[in-house]
């Protein structure tokens, strides 16, 4: 299949010339599937299989024992709180970055992505430095529920901001001015004119933030720790189960965590599409 020989084909090829001979599309597909299998698919399959190792009752027990159940509930509650915080703070920050004007705004815009670039363990150390036992401002939140929420808010900060920002740039300022000149208060203008067009972006940013929050580990290790019935989230519980060799229990808890993340991403994906259609 030397392509040089067919190089001087006619001006109108019968079918669109894709990339069939980049080492052969079939070979390429095989390599991609093989790579994903070794790295991602086989391990996930092993996880699912391991979770059923002790049968349905063992699976259910791994989720419903008091510590796991408490931890699952707390993981979801903390993540939900963080999503609500992100909806307000993220939208406000996006608003300020797009509409406001002040010295240093460009630098501030660059800083938003820091939580993505910063290792999670550093995020924990960072919060511990200011809000830990030797806090220079006298606030010691370490190893409390507040610490969990702060750490999760830290690592999920960019999601809503970066989702809302580009949409806000596109919003028609004239519609707002029209609403305002017709006597609408700034709040009414925001609620009736701007919010509907921002909603899809807020939803998709929230979904990503939630999925990230329920699996977070690194930023919590040092600042919140994983104290059973106090600060322990699911990832911490799974980690300690791995340490004690209860792989089946850990796998069951992992499968539940993964399923929740996928369902949330799917449902929010649908919601985002729905609200996009209704944004007009």
């Amino acid at each position, binding site marked *: 299949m*030397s*392509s040089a020989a067919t*190089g*001087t*084909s006619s001006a109108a090829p019968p079918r669109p*010339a*894709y*990339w069939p001979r*980049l*080492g052969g599309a079939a070979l390429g597909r095989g390599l*991609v*599937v093989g790579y*994903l299998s070794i790295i*991602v698919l*086989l*391990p*996930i399959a*092993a*996880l699912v299989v391991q979770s059923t190792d002790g049968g349905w009752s063992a699976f259910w027990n791994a989720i419903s024992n008091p510590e796991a159940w408490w931890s699952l509930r707390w993981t979801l509650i903390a993540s939900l709180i963080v999503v609500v915080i992100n909806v307000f*703070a993220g939208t*406000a*920050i996006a*608003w*300020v970055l797009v509409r*406001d004007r002040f010295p240093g705004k460009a630098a*501030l815009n*660059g*800083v938003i*992505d*820091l939580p*993505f*670039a*910063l*290792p*999670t*363990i550093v995020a924990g*150390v*960072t*919060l511990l*430095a*200011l809000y830990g036992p030797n806090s220079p401002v006298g606030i010691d939140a370490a190893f409390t529920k507040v610490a969990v929420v702060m750490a999760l808010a*830290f690592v999920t*900060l960019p999601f809503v901001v970066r989702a809302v920002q580009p949409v806000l740039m596109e919003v028609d300022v004239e519609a707002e001015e029209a609403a305002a000149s017709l006597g609408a208060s*700034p*709040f009414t203008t925001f609620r009736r004119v701007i919010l509907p067009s921002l909603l899809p972006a807020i939803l998709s940013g929230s979904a990503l933030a939630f*999925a*990230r929050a*329920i699996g*977070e580990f690194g930023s919590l290790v*040092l600042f919140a720790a994983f104290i059973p019935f106090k600060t322990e989230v699911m*990832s*911490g519980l*799974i980690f300690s189960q*791995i340490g004690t060799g209860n*792989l089946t229990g*850990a*796998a069951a808890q*992992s499968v539940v*965590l*993964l399923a929740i993340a996928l369902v949330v991403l799917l449902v929010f994906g649908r919601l985002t599409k729905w609200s996009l259609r209704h944004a007009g």
Partner: protein
Amino acid sequence: MLASGRLSRWGLRSFALGYLGLLLLIPLGMIFFRAFEHGLGTAFDSITTPDALHAFYLTGLVTLIAIPFNTIFGVGCALLLVRTEFRGKALINAIIDLPFAISPVVIGLSLLLVYSETGWFGDWLNANGFQIIFALPGIVLATIFVTVPFVVREVVPVLHEIGDEQEQAARTLGANSWQTFRRITLPAIRWGVSYGVVIATARALGEFGAVAVVSGRIAGQTQTATIWIQEAFSRYDYTGAYVGAVVLAAIAVSILVAMNVFKRKEA
């Protein structure tokens, strides 16, 4: 009305700046203070112990192995997804995004279940003398897993945007696949690839949860930089932990600067 508009503007601005300051910027400034509060010498000594140096060396080595794998995979996979038609494309797309939805600890566990001595491939690996878990290959696998999506996700939209007219023209003029790729496609996607590589690098350098599970955390052997920072803390070596965090934070900031440069070039 004008007054209330100005008021809400000031209110929003102080809220946004206050939130960013209290959650992100002031704490970040604090680690620099904490790292150097006992002097530069102490800070330098704390981070130049053999274990610390080895941890940073290992993190660099793992990143240098994992990122090229995912770069080549990412570009190839993006080309397949955008330039060819095949069944199961949606599935491949979903699998590529999976690492975003999985807790790092769960990633570590799932690798353990396949590649450890008691895992699916355990017998075969033992028989052939390979050790993956609690050794370098396991750390590399975990790092590759968490960074799979980045390059693909950056390159796919660029490929869509540039279209395939130039590629087709090159092919019509007699260029083979490789020439077309090297002369036409690669130059067009290079900033997208760079951007993806840079974010993937940031993620790789900072990976903690998955590596904490598969590495075995042996000081001087399988301890990466992030795990060394955690262990420094538990040894009450706070200066070491803060200096280590400052080093990684400084790398993250330079990565951020690089990201902004690439983003601007792309636009």
